[in-house]
């Protein structure tokens, strides 16, 4: 994965301004053929604007979009041939599932018999054969979503654009669709860009994730790297849950947090610098023997597969996750001692 990327889709210094507001500042991204990229960020971070520029629905203020060696920046959306799944699905309500899917083929001048054959095959691919003659209004959210996917894929687009496609589904269906969508994408091998604000969705489906904030790219990395080695506090806080502790470097490899000395690799950060430590809730080991950082549990929440605790101690307030091993966990008011393995702490210069 980490060899030089042979760029299939290239966004080059892409910028979009709406009056004084800069929606996307300077977006450069190389996407390899067949790669699944997620644009992840809170609302207003510019991820949807970026997707719309790739789709051709928004004209960039400056920058270029290059697809398979051709500059498509000025190409109108109906000539780009990209497949798009919209957040609202945007199905045509006056057409049946088959008519919806075959619309793109009709626009390409495919003969009627072949059109219907290919539309039915695409519906088969998303397991909707028995709904071919239904109108969108008579389908569930998940079925509509899959019609939208079939409609985008049937035209065999070079790039598939997904705009929060799962956000209107209920939690259980959303998880199923993640797996289904990812398998289908790998099966077809279509280059895909997903826009989402859901970090779990991005982590579970992508080859690489682009985290965006205020129109800028915060970090681009593979899911595991992003989670384990975030390069800034925004990413570490936005992707997954984390505890952020502010402290001061007092000696090489020693940080003082609220009077507690913590050992961590400070690299070349000089003594006296203010730093922020990030530690994920699930990295903590909890025990009753008084080795480690003392906390008093002030909230204990059972989540089924795990326990979520909130503990207060000399380090401040900490969130702790522990797997459910089938025995009773800590209760409110209990005292516990926390330790963590080497490398569980990530260090950032400055405060949050």
């Amino acid at each position, binding site marked *: 994965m980490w060899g030089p990327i042979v760029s299939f889709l290239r966004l080059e210094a892409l910028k979009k301004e709406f009056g004084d507001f800069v929606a996307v500042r300077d977006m450069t991204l190389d996407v390899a053929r067949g790669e699944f990229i997620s644009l992840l960020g809170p609302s207003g971070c510019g991820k949807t604007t970026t997707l719309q520029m790739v789709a*051709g629905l928004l004209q960039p203020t400056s920058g270029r979009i290059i697809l398979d060696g051709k500059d498509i920046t000025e190409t109108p959306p*109906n000539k780009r041939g990209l497949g798009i799944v919209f957040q*609202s699905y945007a*199905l*045509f*309500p*006056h057409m049946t599932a088959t008519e919806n899917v075959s619309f793109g083929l009709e*626009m390409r001048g495919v003969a009627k018999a072949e059109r219907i054959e290919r539309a039915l095959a695409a519906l088969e691919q998303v397991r909707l054969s028995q709904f071919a003659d239904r*109108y969108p209004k008579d389908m569930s959210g998940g079925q509509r979503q899959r019609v939208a996917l079939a*409609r985008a894929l049937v035209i065999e687009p070079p790039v598939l654009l997904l705009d929060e496609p799962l956000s209107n589904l209920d939690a259980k269906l959303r998880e199923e669709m993640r797996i289904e969508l990812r398998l289908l994408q790998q099966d077809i091998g279509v280059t895909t860009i997903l826009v989402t604000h859901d970090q779990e969705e991005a982590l579970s489906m992508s080859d690489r994730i682009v985290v965006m904030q205020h129109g800028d790219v915060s970090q681009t990395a593979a899911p595991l790297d992003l989670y384990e080695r975030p390069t800034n506090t925004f990413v570490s806080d936005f992707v997954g849950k984390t505890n952020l502790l502010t402290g001061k470097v007092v000696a090489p490899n020693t940080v003082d947090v609220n009077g507690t000395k913590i050992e961590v690799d400070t690299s070349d950060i000089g003594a006296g610098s203010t730093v922020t430590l990030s530690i994920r809730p699930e990295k903590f080991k909890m025990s009753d023997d008084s080795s480690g950082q003392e906390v008093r549990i002030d909230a204990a929440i059972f989540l089924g597969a795990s326990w979520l605790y909130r503990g207060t101690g000399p380090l401040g307030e900490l969130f702790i996750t522990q797997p459910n091993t089938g025995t009773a966990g800590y209760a409110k008011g209990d005292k516990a001692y926390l330790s963590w393995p080497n490398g569980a702490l990530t260090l950032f210069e400055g405060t949050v």
Partner: protein
Amino acid sequence: MSGASLRKTPYALTGPGVLFFAALLGAPIVMTFLLSLHSYDFTLGIQSDWSLGNYADVLTDSYFHKIFGRTFGLGLLVTVCCILIGVPEAYVLSRLSSRWRSIFLLIVLGPLLIAVVVRTLGWALLFGSTGILSMTAQALGFADAPVSLMFTFTGMTIALVHVLVPFMVIAVWASLQKIDPQSEDAGLSLGASKFTVLRRITLPQAMPGILSGSIIVFALTTSAFATPAIIGGRRMKVVATAAYDEYLGTLNWPLGAAIAVLLLLANVVIIVSFNKFIERRYAKVFE
């Protein structure tokens, strides 16, 4: 609340409205219908007999055939003109920014804010042989002699379209508002040109609005009185003005009543069957 009183609640709530309409709409219609069953004698006045003679007169007289034909022809023409003007107007309106939209909406609704007689007399000023239209046409060399649209079918059509277009615009606009704008983007992304998107994606979704607007415009045209009376006059009678003339001109109230009942009946039949058609055609597609 007990089950029995719960069941009574809807009746209690709709009661006042039902009474209001029964007294002020239902009763006059029934009385008009009963009146239409009497015969009329030019020396003795309204007789107390019961017969369908007035209906037979209207249905067999080619004079009335012509008037009914003109009325429904006018209804059809005005409806088509309102579709041709109102649908693009509503589409443009739905594309404007909200500030411009409220300004243009006010302009579109303008005709409705002016009293019908004043508005129609305004048209009469424009249409007359010494009116602005005639003078302009002569000045530009389109006509050698004064032209007048007064007492013509064309004049009536223009004046009615002017006042009825707002109803079409509002009906179409309401259904355009319901369209998911992303469905148009989806059409574009699938390779359709802007025009194809308009024709294949937007227009079909606006169809319920166009059809309900058509019903309103058609019903208001065929039952219009003031505009045909002033612009059409005696030379271009429609059913409403013919009924008026029977009442107040020849004083044959029963015949006037029969004409009015036939107009109501024809309108109800046309509108109900059209509505059925719409529901059958589009209920499957729209929620």
